[in-house]
């Protein structure tokens, strides 16, 4: 009967036959699927980094050439004189302002009719005209020189283009055609001589100019009030300061030398510290990141200033104070904000918030607020308010996490010692989660700095360093940002041009900024994990 008993089953030792596709078992396929996904992200990151660097770094070489041309073609020389001319223009603006003040004084305080007031200002107008016209001969010289040096630059650029063309033809094997391309070499020495040859004429003009200015000042009529008198005195001071700069300008012109090399680091410093971002100009392009960086910074600061109290405060309320029902309501609401597409927020900013803020600023009751009233609807404040809205969910969620991670035992111990809820929050819960909260704020900052659509639509897009002398009112000025400029200009630039590459370097800057912020946040979080244990 033994034979009827089933033999002991040892099948489980033998590898079961599995379904295999392309020699892969199911387990292998799963492994490859998940591993593959991870690998793809790593590769994509590497590619992006490589691409950014590859496209971006060419910029510095091109910028160096750009600066070199600026010198060799004599644009730099002309700009010395032009600077003088614009300084004079600033002074005439001061005079217009002074006229307006006199006019207001006459009409508002003396109750003189506008036409009579204008009449009484004839003497001043004559003086202002005299002062303003004094620059004319200089202006003539500048425009003449501008034409000359632009011509040199154009000639040079054409020659460069031809050279590129010939090289291309050569590489394509069309030797004959390549030889047919005529390259006109630019003899800078000769060309520039025409510019520097005007130096004696300039010296004469400048001396004349200074004399005329002083002569004009003598005809300035007396001012009616001490305050206005002071202003005129100030103007006299400004004028003599201006004239005092003449010798320095002359010296710059005398020592100017088109052959002087442009040091390589200037390609970097002109970008990093350049105060102007000026593209597609007929004169000279400047790629300075400072105005864009300041714009991004100011907008982000305003955003953080609003978002940090809001996000952290809401997190504390929801995590520590709110009832379960309130939690269930508030949390999804705040998290929902991050679901609003930023272009919609930007649209809201233009159509509603910008209008509303401007309207508020023009209310008489609010005139005491610094910067009020303002006329630019789109400015740092408008963009900052909207960016705050974008940062709040990030800060809220992460700060709430950090608060949640504070061991309940700390709170219980505090309560058991007779602490109120508020004391427990301030003295125990917040300090214990502080590093988590700080990193939440940093990640919020990263979110804000990288945000594009809202700033493009609402920051006003004026490329200028905000005027900090305005004090707090600086937030009512329009700015342009690093993200905004890329989005706005990338579509129009020629691939491979210096402008194109400059935008890439701005992108690179953003990339590193975000990287640094994230890295810092990570570090702080890790430290916090260790300290709470």
């Amino acid at each position: 009967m033994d034979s009827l008993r089933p033999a002991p089953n040892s099948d489980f030792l033998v590898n079961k036959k599995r379904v295999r596709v392309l020699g892969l078992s199911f387990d292998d396929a799963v492994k490859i699927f998940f591993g593959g996904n991870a690998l793809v992200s790593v590769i994509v990151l590497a590619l992006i980094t490589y691409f950014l660097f590859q496209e971006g770094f060419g910029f510095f070489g091109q910028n160096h050439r750009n600066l070199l041309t600026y010198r060799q073609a004599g644009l730099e020389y002309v700009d010395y004189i032009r600077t003088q001319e614009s300084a004079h223009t600033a002074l005439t603006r001061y005079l217009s302002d002074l006229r307006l003040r006199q006019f207001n004084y006459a009409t508002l305080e003396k109750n003189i009719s506008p036409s009579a007031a204008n009449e009484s200002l004839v003497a001043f107008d004559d003086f202002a005209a005299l002062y303003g016209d004094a620059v004319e001969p200089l202006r003539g010289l500048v425009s003449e020189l501008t034409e000359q040096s632009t011509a040199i630059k154009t000639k040079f650029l054409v020659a460069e283009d031809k050279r590129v063309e010939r090289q291309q033809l050569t590489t394509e094997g069309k030797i004959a055609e390549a030889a047919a391309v005529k390259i006109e070499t630019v003899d800078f020495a000769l060309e520039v001589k025409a510019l520097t040859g005007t130096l004696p004429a300039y010296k004469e003009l400048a001396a004349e100019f200074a004399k005329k200015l002083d002569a004009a000042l003598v005809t300035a009529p007396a001012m009616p009030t001490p305050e206005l008198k002071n202003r005129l005195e100030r103007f006299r001071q400004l004028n003599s300061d201006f004239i005092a700069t003449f010798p320095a300008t002359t010296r710059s012109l005398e020592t100017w030398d088109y052959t002087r090399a442009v040091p390589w680091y200037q390609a970097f410093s002109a970008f990093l510290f350049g105060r102007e971002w000026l593209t597609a100009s007929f004169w000279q392009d400047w790629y300075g990141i400072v105005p864009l960086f300041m714009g991004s910074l100011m907008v982000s600061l305003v955003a953080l200033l609003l978002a940090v109290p809001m996000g952290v405060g809401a997190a504390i309320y929801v995590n520590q104070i709110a009832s379960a029902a309130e939690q269930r309501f508030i949390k999804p609401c705040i998290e929902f904000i991050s679901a609003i597409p930023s272009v919609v927020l930007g649209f809201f900013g233009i159509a509603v918030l910008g209008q509303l803020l401007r309207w508020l600023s023009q209310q008489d009751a609010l005139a005491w607020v610094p910067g009020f009233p303002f006329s630019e609807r789109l400015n740092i404040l408008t963009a900052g308010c909207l960016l705050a809205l974008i940062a709040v969910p990030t800060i809220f969620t992460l700060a709430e996490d950090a608060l949640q991670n504070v061991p309940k035992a700390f709170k219980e111990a505090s309560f058991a010692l007779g602490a109120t809820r508020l004391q427990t929050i301030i003295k125990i819960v917040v300090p214990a989660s502080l590093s988590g909260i700080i990193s939440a704020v940093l990640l919020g900052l990263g979110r804000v700095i990288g945000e594009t659509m809202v700033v493009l639509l609402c920051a006003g897009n004026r490329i200028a360093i905000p005027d900090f002398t305005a004090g707090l009112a600086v937030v009512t000025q329009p700015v342009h940002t690093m993200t905004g400029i890329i989005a706005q200009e990338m579509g129009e630039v020629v691939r491979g041009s210096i402008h194109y590459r400059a935008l890439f370097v701005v992108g690179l800057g953003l990339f590193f900024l975000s990287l640094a912020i994230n890295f810092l946040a990570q570090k702080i979080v890790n430290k916090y994990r260790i300290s709470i244990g």
Partner: protein
Amino acid sequence: MDIKTSFNSSSSGRSIPVTSSPVGPTLIDIDHVDFYYGASQALHDINLKIEEKKVTAFIGPSGCGKSTLLRCLNRMNDLIDGTRVAKGQIKIRGINIYDPSVDVIELRKRVGMVFQKSNPFPKSIYENITYGLRLQGRSNKSDLDAVVEKSLRGAALWDEVKDRLHTSGLGLSGGQQQRLCIARAIAVEPEVILMDEPCSALDPIATVKVEELIQELRTKFTIVIVTHNMQQAARCSDKTAFFYMGKLIEFADTRAIFMNPANAQTEAYVSGRFG
């Protein structure tokens, strides 16, 4: 080890007096209390008087409501949503602590607590101990210094930490942390100290230290201690309450509970036959 023999061995210096302790004045009067977590009842008609300057131990199998009752005594259960004392009163010196007019903050200053898992704040040792005092607005430096030394001496920790008062309390060993928590509790000079399994996370040596400390503290404070360790209850306490399924089964002198319990369930539990 057999509880009864450990009880009788006079070689143990910490054995409790053989004569039945005289009945002291009642400090806490738990008067027919029913307690609920939401809809589920955790305590059934608890009736128990805790005497002043005595150590009272709560014992019983897990989930029988020891911690719940303990946390009722300083209203820590208020922090949990949906809890309520549905019936009865808890009176401390004759005042019903669940009366709406009672200031919970004041109550918790007078009824301190030490938790099962040591929980010093992530602050320095000094700040841990002065925390409760600062809450009361005391900030005089020499005053605080004196309290810190007194409390740490009272918790038998002074000699070990006096040179590093300003380092983190989290840097101490588990046993030291628990004594720091005791020091923190006694710094505000409460009348009652509630201890919820204060030694369950400690090694035997640290446990002995805390038990010795309890022996010293009993002269100044009224102590209520929850423990799963029968020897500990026997060694440390004057009175013992045995709970089962949210009910008080037996409450008597510790000696009586361990030597000749009146209830069969108590007998079974203390002799280790269940629980």
